[in-house]
């Protein structure tokens, strides 16, 4: 679905005096292929380049070197920009800053209106998308009266209204409370599993990355780890050296193993950890 070939991005900024241009290499030589229907998490600490990478997936940023292909379309090709943005929808971090309209259903209608869809079809899509994210009840509300999680679900619906095949989420839960986070993550998972939408989730929450099929860790503009969450989080030390954390239960298992307790490396969720601990504590316990 998405393919990057030696993708590099250099960010040019003028320094304080406005004179000399400072070049900063944000991404270097990234080769990444995202399969149709997959759920990929891109991990990295602040400034690692993960958001910059995401913005290349729908032609908001264009590579300064290399190529990005979305469904075979080159993002630098001006004629296919709108096709790319329609097939690769993007949800951003701040729920307040991505809402255009003063009413939820108008917000969802915004994208299809831009695409010039027939009014009747827009109506149908708006109702369907609000239903999908379970926000039908709030169709007439003002976004400012919604909780963070609800706003982010509306933002997802607003992107779904374009009928995208890929959903890119740039730290969608970073500004939400735990309840809002779980609402949003549940919605994302459902979209991937039930609607078959390819999901690319940019995050710095380890437990969110653990939910994906594939986890890509980015540091300083380069891919450093890539594989299933289990494969990636097995490298506890490497991940820690990058300034990231592993999921809490993985860390617990790691520390236990260091103390000589024979516990599996592949512990990612609380349930798995519980099962493993139960095994060690002598299978007899029920």
């Amino acid at each position, binding site marked *: 679905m998405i393919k990057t070939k030696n993708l590099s991005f250099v960010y040019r900024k003028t320094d304080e005096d406005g004179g000399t241009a400072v070049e900063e290499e944000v991404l270097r030589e990234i080769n990444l292929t995202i399969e149709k229907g997959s759920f990929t998490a891109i991990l990295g600490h602040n400034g690692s380049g993960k958001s910059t990478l995401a*913005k290349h997936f*729908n032609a*908001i940023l264009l590579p300064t070197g290399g190529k990005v292909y979305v469904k075979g379309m080159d993002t630098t090709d001006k004629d296919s920009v*709108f096709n790319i*943005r*329609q097939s690769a*929808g*993007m949800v*951003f971090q*701040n729920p*307040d*800053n*991505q*809402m*255009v*309209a*003063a*009413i939820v*259903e*108008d917000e969802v*209608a*915004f*994208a*299809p*209106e*831009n*695409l*010039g*869809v*027939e*009014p009747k079809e*827009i*109506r149908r899509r*708006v109702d369907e998308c609000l239903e999908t994210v379970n926000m039908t009840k709030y169709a007439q509300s*003002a*976004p*400012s009266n919604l909780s963070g999680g609800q706003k982010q679900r509306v933002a997802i619906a*607003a*992107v779904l209204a*374009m009928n995208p095949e890929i959903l890119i989420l740039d730290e969608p839960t970073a500004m939400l409370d735990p309840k809002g986070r779980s609402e949003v993550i549940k919605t994302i998972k459902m979209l991937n599993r039930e609607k078959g939408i390819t999901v690319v989730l940019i995050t710095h929450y380890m437990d969110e990355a653990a939910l994906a099929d594939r986890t890509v860790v980015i540091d300083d503009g380069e891919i450093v780890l890539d594989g299933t969450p289990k494969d990636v989080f097995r490298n506890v030390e490497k991940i820690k050296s990058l300034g990231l954390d592993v999921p809490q239960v993985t860390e617990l298992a790691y520390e236990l193993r260091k103390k000589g307790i024979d516990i599996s490396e592949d512990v990612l969720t609380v349930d798995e950890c519980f099962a493993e601990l139960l095994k060690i504590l002598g299978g007899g316990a029920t």
Partner: protein
Amino acid sequence: MLKDITIGQYIPGSSPLHKMHAPLKIILTILYITVLFFVDSPVSYAIFTVYTVALVLISGVPLKVLLRGVKPMLWIFIFTAILNVFMTPGEIIWSLPIFRFTLKITNEGLAAGVTMAVRLLYLIMGTSLLTLTTSPLQLTDGIEKLLKPLRKIKVPSHEIAMMMTIAIRFIPTLAEETDKIKKAQTARGADFETGNIIKRAKAMIPLLVPLFISAFRRADDLATAMEARCYNGGDNRTRMKESHMTALDVKAIVISILAAAVVLLAEFWT
């Protein structure tokens, strides 16, 4: 407290006034105001009052809400009335010499004062009726439609409407932010409450600077989010809620024109 600001003070409802085609409603409001400025004689004022009262009753907007809109204008009211009462030359009915001036009230002045006050009252009530029965979005939509013919002379009608929509959308967000910054600055010892006007104006700087910076950041984010959803200006754009003129609107046109004709006839005939 800042959160209470609601632009236009729209009151949802299902009266014929609410259901009217927004662009038409704007035009008819302009007609209402135009007629109002021709009205001068007591007879036409009486007819105009009946018309206004009828509109208010049809709209179903509580009178209390309507008068709330008048309240902030109270000073302008009093000022205009006083100016008219004391400044209009004519038959003196009361005078009071103060130093070299003579404060005098004339018959004509009293009449002009009352007329002006009533005219202002109706002006505010008429325009309030428009904003009270039309949601801000319908209103901007209506303005966009009305400005559309001006596109030919390069008036960016869609962009103007889009800007108004976004401004309306961000008022509560920015109001909330202002409250937050204010609290944060107060916690650090900023004083917004005391001092003279100049001191207080200066105290606003630490409030406004962060607010503006954040507003610019929001603008940047919003622009990206709009682009990501294929926003490309007004060309080839469709609308989900296409509103069309209905039989109701035709009735509204007929009634408005009839009312205007009757008032103007009463004004110029007598």
